[in-house]
């Protein structure tokens, strides 16, 4: 059910993508996401999506990605059906297929970043981009706790199922009501943990010194410059294309209904 979130979870691997500087990957992911948002036709979106697959393969995460996308399939189906039924454009089905591909492409672009950047690296990258340490730390903590929260959610579901809450039965209204016994404990547990983490951080002297130094500093290498350069080029190129170039007819292909 929640398996599609896996694609945003860091996995320890040794790959060319993992070894890139997080800042250049940030730019890459941002570029890919923006490109996915620039176009809303099936062919260009497919091209973008397909172009990301070799990147995932290079990150040795293709299988993980495929599994997550399988978990997403219900949501995608839902999006396609509802958009087709409710949309006012002339080719609603074609339009909703494009929307679904856009969602996939957006998720994939961010997953390339989150799959390959360790929370600590993200924090370090932010700090070196002159974000205040406290904010950077909060950000990396948030990332670090996503899987924990997921496990907690499962434990809570189990506990409530054992008390007779039937999560997968009943009409829509009942199902929505059934979320309450899951959400409330999840929030409470999270707040309790946040408090205890804060206490334990303070007892270990968090924020004691004004000027922090870092043992490991991120350094741009030649390949990072290359990724950054290509990303910017792509970004500028596709914005230019979107604004000033008329796409060839085959690119604007739409399904007949």
């Amino acid at each position, binding site marked *: 059910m929640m398996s599609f979130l896996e694609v945003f979870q860091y996995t320890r691997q040794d790959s060319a993508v993992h070894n890139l500087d997080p800042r250049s990957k940030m730019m890459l992911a941002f570029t890919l996401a923006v490109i996915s948002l620039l176009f809303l036709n099936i062919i260009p979106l497919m091209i973008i999506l397909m172009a990301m697959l070799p990147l995932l393969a290079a990150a040795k995460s293709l299988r993980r990605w495929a599994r997550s996308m399988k978990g997403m399939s219900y949501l995608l189906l839902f999006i396609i059906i509802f958009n087709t039924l409710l949309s006012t454009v002339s080719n609603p089905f074609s339009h909703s297929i494009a929307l679904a591909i856009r969602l996939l492409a957006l998720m994939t672009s961010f997953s390339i970043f989150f799959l390959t950047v360790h929370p600590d690296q993200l924090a370090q990258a932010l700090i070196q981009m002159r974000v205040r340490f406290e904010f950077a730390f909060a950000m990396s903590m948030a990332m670090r706790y996503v899987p924990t929260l997921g496990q*907690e959610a499962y*434990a*809570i579901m*189990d*506990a*409530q*199922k*054992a*008390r*007779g*809450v*039937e999560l997968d039965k009943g009409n829509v209204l009942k199902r929505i009501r059934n979320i*309450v*016994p899951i959400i*409330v*404990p999840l929030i*409470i*547990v999270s707040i*309790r943990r946040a408090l205890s983490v804060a206490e334990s951080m303070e007892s270990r002297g968090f924020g004691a010194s004004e000027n922090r130094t870092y043992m490991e500093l991120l350094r741009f290498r030649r390949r990072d410059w290359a990724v950054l350069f290509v990303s910017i080029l792509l970004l500028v190129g596709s914005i230019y294309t979107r604004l000033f170039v008329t796409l060839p007819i085959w690119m604007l292909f739409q399904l007949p209904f």
Partner: protein
Amino acid sequence: MIMIEDVHFAYDGIYTALQGVSLQIEKGECVAIMGTNGAGKTTLVKHMNGLLRPQHGRVIVDGADAKNLSIAELSRIVGLVWQNPDHQLFLDSVRKEIEFGLKNLGFTPEETDAQCTQTLKNLGLEGLAERSPFALSGGERKRVALATVLATEPQVLALDEPTIGQDAQQKELLARMLMDLNDRGRTVIVVTHDIEFVIEHFPRTIAMAEGRIVADGSTSSVLSNEDVLERCSLTLPQLTVAARALHKAFPQVSERLTLLSELEDAVSGILGGTQ
């Protein structure tokens, strides 16, 4: 009462949590399940009320194959008390919290009311009935969580680490309550690392390691087996250590003593019956 036959289970198909577990627990038994972290104890217990379904093998609860019963139906027979009470408490009073499970499992309003009042009394929670569970201490929350399950009067009560975070007095209270339930014919299963708690109150112990049962039998025999203790990374209770030391010096003392009274008898025997 509960029969588990060659059950295999693997989370996400990779990590094998249970590999061929078979056991039988009779009605009215008092059983402790012990083992290292990750031995599959909780996974095993979750099979008993259908939260997990065996990928291979069968689970029979009260004569019926568990696969034909829903979690809610199984939960009326096998009540599970969780390690972390915060995973289930979500209402704004202790009373409502207890009533919630009763209503879900199909008790009538009158039954719900009666059960709730009775359980609050049994657990000494009357004073907290209208309090918010979130404002209670950790130990109290744990008792509320226990109450929510006890109120449904399951025939089998399975508890995951019930003694963690409880002081000696609460532990004693818990033990007495469990024994009381057991006297009234209920089956009690407890998953725990608390070796003293097991020795004092549970006649049968199942030891698990790496998803398998390594020993199943009387608590005294299981917990005096060096090999089992090592595989389950359990440290011997002090009583047993003392008994072994005595056995070395006085061979007539059995090295399998597990109760304080046995040790007392042995010592007074050595001293020539003088008290």
